[in-house]
């Protein structure tokens, strides 16, 4: 049976949190700005660098690579404050959440020295080149391929839904480096691709509300030098799946719509028995989800890989993000006004971008299937 352990905070962690809270209170006084919605957040490289100056980007990078060497738990405490306030975390998000830890785990010494200090400084932003037109949930079927050339690889293919490729510097790109024979999970590799390379184009794909969030990225004979291979050639699948505990369990998987609730309580009259009942149940769920997510960060710090726990928390958390919106809509009543006040605009944006919550980073259907297989396997083992 999977068991989550509640976790208190140390004095140092509480101190860090107080610092972050003060910073956030100063940068984002309620009602003076339109909050961002989780990882759909806009990019604000200036903001990312202000955070970096405080030591809050790439926090898990150890000192020898220019980082503060802090824990996954400390990073959790920083990012949850930012997400709860709806901060524009888009620019450094992937580099901070995912790229820094995977370079630490799998990268060569050269990659670590070259990239980690820049991630920490807020000077190197990464996006994820995984999905393709014909490869979504079935990620291992990617067709983008790299072939051997003098001193490196020649990359050809097409990625879609690449969030932030329009402002990022690099794309962590999953591609095939040997032809598929038999199992499709074999022969995949991860390359770090410079987005200014010759032969590479980035074109916007507009979200349903016209926002430019993600892109199509096309590679035509893009040269990628050998040292930009992450880890081993052929180990791409193993590496990508081990990222998932970082990608799936964080506060970004249940806090996306928190700013909507916050503005609702701040800027609307809320009272009465229905509000009490529904807000009460909502508060209980936030409390439980947050503590489960925090307990996963603690496990990561203890060297565990809580992949299934992370999967379940992502499924619960992203579904819950929808529940929050349903509740706020019901209690708000009336027609939505996308051009209304800040709260109205925020609720409207959240409503139309809500479908993304349960798609990105692995759809909830696929997450549940992965989790079920694990549970059934464990049960068979125990019998």
């Amino acid at each position: 049976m999977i068991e989550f352990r509640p976790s208190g905070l140390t004095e140092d962690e509480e101190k860090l949190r107080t610092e972050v809270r003060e910073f956030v209170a100063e940068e984002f006084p309620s009602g003076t700005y339109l909050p961002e919605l989780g990882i759909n957040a806009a990019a604000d490289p200036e903001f990312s660098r202000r955070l970096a100056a405080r030591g809050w980007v790439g926090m898990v990078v150890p000192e020898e690579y220019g980082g503060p060497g802090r824990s996954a738990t400390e990073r959790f405490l920083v990012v949850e404050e930012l997400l709860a306030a709806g901060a524009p975390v888009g620019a450094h998000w992937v580099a901070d959440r995912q790229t820094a830890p995977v370079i630490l785990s799998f990268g060569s010494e050269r990659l670590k020295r070259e990239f980690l200090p820049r991630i920490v400084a807020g000077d190197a932003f990464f996006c994820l080149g995984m999905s393709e037109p014909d490869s979504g949930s079935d990620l291992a079927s990617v067709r983008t391929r790299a072939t051997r050339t003098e001193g490196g690889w020649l990359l050809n293919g097409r990625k879609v839904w690449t969030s932030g490729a329009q402002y990022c510097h690099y794309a962590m790109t999953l591609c095939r480096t040997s032809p598929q024979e038999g199992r499709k999970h074999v022969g995949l590799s991860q390359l770090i691709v410079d987005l200014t390379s010759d032969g590479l184009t980035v074109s916007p794909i507009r979200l349903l509300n016209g926002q430019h969030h993600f892109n199509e990225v096309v590679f035509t004979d893009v040269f990628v030098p050998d040292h930009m291979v992450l880890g081993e050639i052929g180990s791409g699948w193993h590496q990508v799946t081990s990222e998932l505990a970082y990608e799936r369990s964080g506060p970004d998987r249940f806090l996306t719509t928190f700013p909507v609730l916050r503005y609702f309580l701040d800027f609307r009259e809320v009272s009465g028995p229905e509000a009490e009942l529904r807000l009460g149940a909502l508060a209980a769920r936030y409390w439980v989800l947050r503590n489960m997510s925090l307990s996963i960060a603690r496990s990561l710090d203890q060297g565990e890989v809580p992949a299934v726990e992370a999967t379940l928390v992502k499924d619960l958390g992203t579904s819950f993000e929808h529940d929050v919106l349903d509740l706020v809509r019901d209690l708000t009543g009336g027609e939505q006004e996308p051009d209304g006040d800040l709260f109205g605009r925020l609720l409207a944006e959240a409503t139309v971008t809500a479908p993304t919550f349960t798609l990105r980073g692995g759809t909830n259907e696929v997450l549940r299937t992965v989790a079920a297989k694990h549970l059934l396997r464990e049960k068979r083992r125990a019998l």
Partner: protein
Amino acid sequence: MSDELQLLDGTLRAIFAKHFDRDTRAATGREFPRDLWTVLDKAGLTALGDVESGAGLAELVVLARAVGRAAAPVPLVETAGLAAWLVTGAGLDLPPGITTCAAAHPDDDLTLARSGDGWTATGVLHRVPWGRDSDQVAAVATGEGTAFAVVLPIPDDVRRGTNLGEEPRDTVRFDGVALAADAVAPTTVDHDALRERGAVLRAASMGGAMESALELSLAYAGEREQFGQPISSFQAVQHHLVAIAEETMCTGMAVQLAVSATAEQAAFAVAAAKNTAGRAARIVTKRAHQVHGAIGVTDEHALPWFTTRLWAWQDEFGTTRDWAARLGRGVLADGGAGLWPRLSASVGGGDAG
């Protein structure tokens, strides 16, 4: 879990497995399983909540969870978790025999009046767990404007009732029952405090019952075949299993948070635990039955031991809705600025991991 808690859990599991297996349960039928009680009593478990013993809420949550996991039809939670705690906390001794505890029912009304050196007790306690099988009942009574812990002998003429899980829930009346001075002591535990403690322990039992419903569902899905394959190969069934696991985990976490909560958080954490368990119970019962098909709704099958209790326990020590309303009043009082600090407040225990 710490080593000590693990040991306690192991002891409880072993007792229920050995002394209340399927055959014993079938043979006992609707009779009170006195042999099981004797074993629990001899092992010192029925007095676990005695404040002198050093066992706190963490231990009692382990006990309540084990009771739920075994669907054991005994008032162990009431005796060890509530009566022992209430009575010894007020400086009284826990008498021998079975001492159940009042269920903090909203209609309970028990008053004390002075009479000579002692007291007399008058009033009604509703839906007292295993009232008919117990020797006495511990309760909170009011006398002269203060709260007292009392232990009252159970009269012969209880009005019998049950809950959906067929557990006795009896109404007990007292009409000027004389009590010696040493059967009554002032207490800091009022009706609400008793209800809160009961709510956490019921939520823990519910988590235990959900664990068993999950185990049964996983096992059955792996073994039952239709269309030439185990039903666990169907995605719709897999998703039921995952939803059951998720809600079971949420309940376990919510209960542990109530154990770890600081004094300032306790009221919120308790309400969140019972509300979470109640909502989870609805999902778990529905989906576990769906996985089991018709066999699951027969009295031959073990699943109803757990699901009927989950249906009953949702409403005991405050309904899911009662606790939601209480949480909601807190949210509205805190306002937008207070919500995040409340939700993210650190529980006790350092980086207790």
